[in-house]
């Protein structure tokens, strides 16, 4: 295999693994956060404004870890620097 094929295979496989594993952790965390927010809403409906605001901010913080993994996999797939480097080298020859 030439280096272009190796880079392509490694990037595609790594992108899939990155997104799948990056989705597991935040999914568990968000489920936990939403379930405890719902139970505290049921106990104290008066505090719903504060709970909802904190929940949204917290969810966005948790979700951003999944977004980081997604961005990394998108860079690997569509804007891969190693791939571009090898292509530029091959064109320069």
């Amino acid at each position, binding site marked *: 295999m030439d280096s272009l094929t190796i880079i392509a295979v490694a990037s595609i496989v790594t992108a899939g693994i990155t997104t799948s594993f990056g989705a597991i952790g935040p999914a568990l965390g968000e489920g936990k956060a939403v379930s405890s927010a719902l139970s505290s809403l049921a106990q104290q409906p008066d505090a719903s404004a*504060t709970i909802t*605001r904190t929940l*949204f*901010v917290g969810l*966005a913080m948790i*979700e*951003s870890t999944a*977004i*980081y993994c*997604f*961005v990394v996999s*998108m860079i690997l797939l*569509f*804007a891969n620097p190693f791939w571009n480097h090898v292509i530029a080298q091959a064109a320069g020859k």
Partner: protein
Amino acid sequence: MRLSPDEIIFWQYGFFKLNATIVVTWGLMFVLAVGSELITRKLSTGLRRSRWQNFLEIIVTAIEKQIEEVGLSHPEKYLPFLGTLFLFVAAASLGTVIPGYEPPTGSLSTTTALALCVFVAVPLFGVEEQGVGGYLKSYAQPTAIMLPFNIISEISRTLALAIRLFGNMMSGAMIIGILLTITPFIFPIAMTALGLLTGMVQAYIFSILAAVYIAAATRVRRPKPEPDAKH
């Protein structure tokens, strides 16, 4: 596949490129600025007021209330900065209802610029409130060992602000793009509606996080009350 609207180039002269991000950003700025100017031209304090004035008043008072709930006691001081951030990000994501529109926040350069604004504004507000010495001292809280970690967190949260907004907007556009090739009729509409919700939530998150950072920087540390008299 396009990763960001940076790659749509309308006009190029040497190094200078006029891409879709710049054009849409200036369009949004134009709409927001001219719209606000037109609405606030004839404000009334009486009982009869125009619909648009009511609309703007709802937005401004809601933002003011949210800023106050975060812990900033004088929201009108921070309203121009935080309100502009919120309105720009919200307008950028609401524009996706227009066909052919590309949200400028789906480009990493726009979100980095917004995050850098927050990065610069937080120390400015902090210095204004506590003085240079007081603000610099807050980096060494609770002990001097925490100094490098406080600096790292300052930089990493700026990075997180930029990447979070970019990732959310870019993923929304990309999911719609992929779905259009697979199931072209009904399903992309549902995802667009979900994208609108995500965009509003992200606009809220962005401005609230900026408010929280400013609140943390401007909090004046009062000396603890002595529990008992001198022995």
